[in-house]
């Protein structure tokens, strides 16, 4: 797991990025010219096949444009959440009710087409006139619109922690468990985005993962040592029973941390009145049943 975070999280240096970007540009350029040449040749020699080639080429371009559009939409959605986040921070810092009202409007707009939140939207609309402080209004928005999503997110993180712990403990192949952990984490991060109203495209998803890991590194949450094992119910005994199980618990805990970081990145508001999930709770609940410790839960 630490390897996963290191793999994903390391920011490439400027030179490396320049190298990669120019490389990709060159490669695409050469490839396009080769394709054009090829189709040109084909058109002169076998006109029918040539036209088929042109058609396929056009289709592919269209598909690529479609993908780009989707990525753009996903990105725009994130930008919206990001804007709400920043506005909320400013509203809280300045205690500005006007800004908080804008945030509340943004939130409601973000979740406009979620039928399951209909009743909560209505309550928020009814009650927001009572709020005269940024904090009170944002708390209201958080309680009405995000509390339920928080529960979904929590369950998602618990499931991912369980998957990763099981994979680490049970998959005997050296790199296969890393791959499984990576996949589970990426999936979890994407789900966080979806729960809170973002949409992760392919590139967007990768970028999101990067943001999450950066956030994680910035808050110093990856430096998890063995002490983490002790903090988790039964972890101390487990790690003595079996090294692999111990590692499984640690990796589950790390996944929970990634999950919380992802939550913080994707959640349109900071945690105000709702409790921020705790690694310990998530892991205990997530691993309950996995190692037969449910009677103690």
């Amino acid at each position, binding site marked *: 797991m630490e390897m996963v975070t290191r793999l994903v999280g390391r920011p490439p240096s400027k030179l490396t990025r320049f190298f990669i970007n120019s490389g990709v540009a060159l490669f695409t350029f050469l490839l396009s010219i080769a394709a054009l040449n090829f189709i040109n040749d084909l058109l002169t020699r076998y006109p029918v096949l040539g036209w088929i080639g042109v058609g396929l080429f056009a289709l592919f371009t269209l598909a690529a444009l479609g993908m780009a559009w989707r990525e753009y939409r996903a990105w725009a959605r994130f930008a919206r959440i990001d804007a709400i986040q920043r506005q909320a921070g400013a509203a809280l810092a300045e205690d500005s*009710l006007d800004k908080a009202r804008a945030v509340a409007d943004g939130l409601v707009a973000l979740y406009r087409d979620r039928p399951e939140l209909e009743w909560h939207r209505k309550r928020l609309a*009814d*009650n927001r006139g*009572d*709020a*005269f402080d940024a904090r*009170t209004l944002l*708390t*209201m928005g958080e*309680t009405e619109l995000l509390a339920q999503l928080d529960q979904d997110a929590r369950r998602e993180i618990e499931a991912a922690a369980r998957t990763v712990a099981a994979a680490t403990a049970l998959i005997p192949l050296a790199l296969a468990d890393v791959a499984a952990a990576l996949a589970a984490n990426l999936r979890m991060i994407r789900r966080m985005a979806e729960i809170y109203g973002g949409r992760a495209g392919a590139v967007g998803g990768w970028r999101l993962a990067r943001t999450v890991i950066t956030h994680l590194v910035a808050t110093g949450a990856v430096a998890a040592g063995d002490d983490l094992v002790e903090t988790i119910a039964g972890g101390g005994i487990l790690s003595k029973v079996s090294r692999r199980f111990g590692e499984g618990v640690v990796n589950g805990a790390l996944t929970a941390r990634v999950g919380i970081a992802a939550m913080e990145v994707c959640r349109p508001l900071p945690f105000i009145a709702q409790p921020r999930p705790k690694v310990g709770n998530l892991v205990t609940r997530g691993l309950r049943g996995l190692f037969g410790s449910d009677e103690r839960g």
Partner: protein
Amino acid sequence: MGIGSTLMAGIGLGDPVIRLGVTGLSRAGKTVFITSLVANLMDRGRMHALRAAADGSIKAAWLQPQPDDTIPRFDFERHLAALTGPEPHWPEGTRHVSQLRLSLRLDGRGLLGGLTGPRTVHLDIVDYPGEWLLDLRLMEKDFSEWSAEVLDRMQGRPGAEEYQAALNGLDGDRFDEPVAQRLAQTYTAHLHAAREAGWSDCTPGRFLIPGEMEGSPALTFAPLPASFEGGRLHKEFRRRFDAYKSRVVKPFFRDHFARIDRQVVLVDVLGAIHQGPRAVEDMRRAMADILTAFRPGRAGWLAQLLGTRRVERILFAATKADHLHQVQHNRLTAILSAMLREARDRADFSGARTEAMSIAALRATTEDVIHQDGQELPAVRGRLLDGRQAAFYPGELPADPAAVLHPARDGADRWLDGDYAIMNFAPAPMTARPGDGPPHIRLDRAAEFLIGDRL
């Protein structure tokens, strides 16, 4: 105290009691505050910022017989009916002490809550005429000091000349009751007139609102200039003054302020600003004096009453904030903070937690925008006392509190840059949803600060 009483409660020795001291001059909004707070704790639909109400750990709230059998009960139902009835109107000024106990049934959440199970917390509140609060300042003075101060302050206030005239040609070596009564009446007339004109430092407070003591000798005295010293009149008045202090003022504060845990200081800052710099300075001084008497850890007479007990939290609240559009609330709070700066620093220093905010116990207005000369003015709209609807822009409060406090301190007659006006709005008729208390501004935050940690 805090831990002690919790422990006592834990081992079954009575439920914890929070004694909330509501401090405020006359017309500061005490009665409305108490009524609305209690109503909103009983119907908690609008208490979003009170955590225990929002997360549902308050299961029930009900009024109980108060602990003190000799004091009238706070007439909550009548005041609430006045504020929220079909013809809403403000309650009359309070004329005597009254008390109320609200009990809250709590179903604790979290680790401790799960262990202790349901528990009950009582909230005791006392209402009284604000005029009586000023008597706190009498306690540290003797009759001569008080007389000199009052006579000096009297100059230029309404009714002062009549009183001076009554003093002239008086024989200080003789004492007879009719003369004493005439003097006291003239002096009382002066106090009433001065208060009408907006002065708040009118002592003795019982002269204005005598309660059941009307006409008793303890209320039949008046300030005498130094030239009367040594005479019989002076002696008798000094005796009555001392009796007033020990028999009237002291018991009042002992019974109602000696054991408070939480204090809310209500100040009608807007009203004072509206009346002008004089009133602001006057109010600032009065509040500073009063709060000095509460100074925790002080070797004064009130401190002796308070014993080692200390007020743990003090909220300074500028009331009637619904006269202002919310964009100006921060400025109002800043003015309040600057005004009570010393008192607040002192409380902070002694370890109490303090906070300042602008509140309206009963929101009588809605926000509105007035278009004037191509400008948009953030205004409020409400029902005037005569029933008409009006939108109203009270003027812009300065961003720097010094712009209000300095002219006041320098004794200016009127504000330099424009006027701040206040309109008297009547409470708005409401159609409350079930479970909602009366509308307010930040009453929930005030409650969270004052009692939230004990719920």
